[in-house]
């Protein structure tokens, strides 16, 4: 058990340092902290101009979405960068559980996403004057953590796809754009066509943004619990999907030599 926890914890952190491209202070601050904050401000001012929704709608939604960049790209890098370093073969030769190896890699990215979301929410609230009820903070923190975890597993799923298809960064870029459009963060879900709404329901962020908005509106944890549970289910779903795809593609690589392993 201790060995398994070490693999998930220690292994996950070392893998994060090895594989995440944005660990330098300049990249981290610029890409992951400043970028999402300006995106949030852009949509908040656009919302004011168009009168679609109030600041709270945009600040809360975009703060939750802020976690996605680090998590989606991080989850993708956690698998795809193995190709870049030529280390995939050595990882696949490990006798340890693949599920533990790869799912453990998501945790540092999720922690990263949580930090970014909290920072973005705090900075935007101070800049735009959003008041968040104090008793909503624990629930909000939990919501952001679940959203970050769901995004991490979503990214890992994309990374697993990257084992089979080389142009995974294209998929990641499109996915991040889809999160912006389909999760109801900037465009109210009611204003989207039905198929987009349904697709959004299956993506991370959608339900977490809803839960966060209810908490910020002072509706209490009871009101936020159903969408939060839905976000958790999305996280578990992507975790299972990522683990299945990793297993599937590894087995296929042994049969068809489909991975450029070494």
């Amino acid at each position, binding site marked *: 058990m201790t060995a398994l926890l070490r693999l998930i914890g220690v292994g996950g952190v070392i893998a994060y340092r090895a594989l995440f491209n944005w660990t330098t202070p300049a990249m981290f601050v610029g890409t992951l902290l400043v970028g999402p904050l300006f995106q949030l401000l852009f949509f908040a001012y656009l919302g004011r101009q168009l009168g679609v929704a109030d600041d709270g709608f945009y600040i809360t939604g975009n703060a939750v979405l802020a976690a996605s960049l680090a998590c989606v790209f991080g989850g993708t890098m956690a698998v795809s960068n193995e190709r870049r370093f030529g280390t995939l073969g*050595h990882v696949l030769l490990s*006798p340890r559980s693949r599920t533990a190896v790869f799912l453990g890699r998501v945790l540092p990215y999720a922690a990263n996403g949580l930090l970014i979301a909290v920072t973005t929410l705090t900075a935007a609230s101070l800049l735009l004057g959003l008041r968040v009820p104090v008793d909503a903070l624990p629930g909000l923190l939990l919501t952001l953590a679940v959203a970050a975890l769901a995004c991490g597993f979503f990214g890992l799923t994309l990374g697993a796809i990257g084992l089979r298809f080389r142009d995974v960064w294209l998929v990641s870029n499109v996915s991040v754009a889809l999160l912006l459009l389909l999760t109801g963060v900037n465009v109210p879900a009611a204003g989207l066509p039905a198929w987009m709404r349904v697709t959004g329901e299956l993506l991370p962020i959608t339900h977490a943004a809803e839960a966060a908005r209810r908490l910020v509106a002072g509706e209490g944890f009871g009101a936020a619990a159903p969408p939060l549970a839905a976000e958790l289910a999305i996280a578990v779903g992507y975790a299972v999907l990522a683990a299945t795809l990793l297993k599937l593609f590894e087995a296929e690589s*042994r049969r068809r030599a489909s991975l450029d392993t070494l």
Partner: protein
Amino acid sequence: MSEHAIEAVGLRRTYRSRTGWLRPQRREVEAVRGVDLTVGNGELFGLLGPNGAGKTTTIKLLNTLLIPTAGEARICGFDVVRQTREVRRRIGYVFGGDRGLYDRLSARDNLRYFAELYGVPGREQKRRIAELLDLVRLSGRENDRVEGYSRGMRQRLHIARGLLHRPRVLFLDEPSIGVDPVAARELRQTVADLAATGTTVLLTTHYMAEADELCGRIAVIANGTIQALGTPAELRHHADGRQVLEVEAYGVGDAQLAVIHALPGVREASVVVTGAAQVLTVQSDAGVDVQADVLRALDGVRLGRVTARQPTLEDAYVAIVNRVDAQALPVEAVAV
């Protein structure tokens, strides 16, 4: 304990690929075409062959990265297809080249990570990593990022990584490729030390001197099958009845090489470029003096030193591989 560290029977591997959408072409390449091999516990075994001969594919079949199309293989008695976890616990894999390490991490962190992946218990990791850093002479540089390492240092770190979990069988796939002579000598010493501790080593290399110095037995693989197997001394017999003429030259062309090849008594002729010069190596029947004919064929080419000598292991290897080339069977099929 199984009698053999490595056993392979009738091992075959065919690669199938498809290209094109409108008019798809299916291509089949038989990379390994029936390899039979046994390597004893603690043996240092060499697998030699030209590029594309099937060396790396054979290793990938043995180390579980690929499934054989036919045949079977066992490592320490465990089946490489069905008992992958047991096999992986007992093997280490090291390959040559710059890749295969996390450049942003230090050597120590690379080893820490792979120690986790290969199941080295937490309480043993620190001591084991320090031992291996000493073994591969990287102590003192262990906290430097790998991106600043020379190729020789990287190769030594590869070896340390391959040994973390004390594998009983170590696959070394061209570990000295691109390494300078001093670093290559250090690597050979490290490999020899390993074999002395009882680790079974399967080494693939292009360097005959390396194989000759290190390996107890050598298999020559070409065209996907084992063409010769024995001790270095036994393999040299493949060049029995021959003598070798070496000519340093500047500007030998294909036409002249073809003329030399066709001379009576000549068995092999090849040119290797070393720096600005070429070295023409001509193997001929021992009883036939071809020197005068060869020099006549090189009329007009600036020549350097001319040496006659007895065949080496490398000459025997060339003889084996060229014999295969002469009777080569098609290994690739294309279907539309």
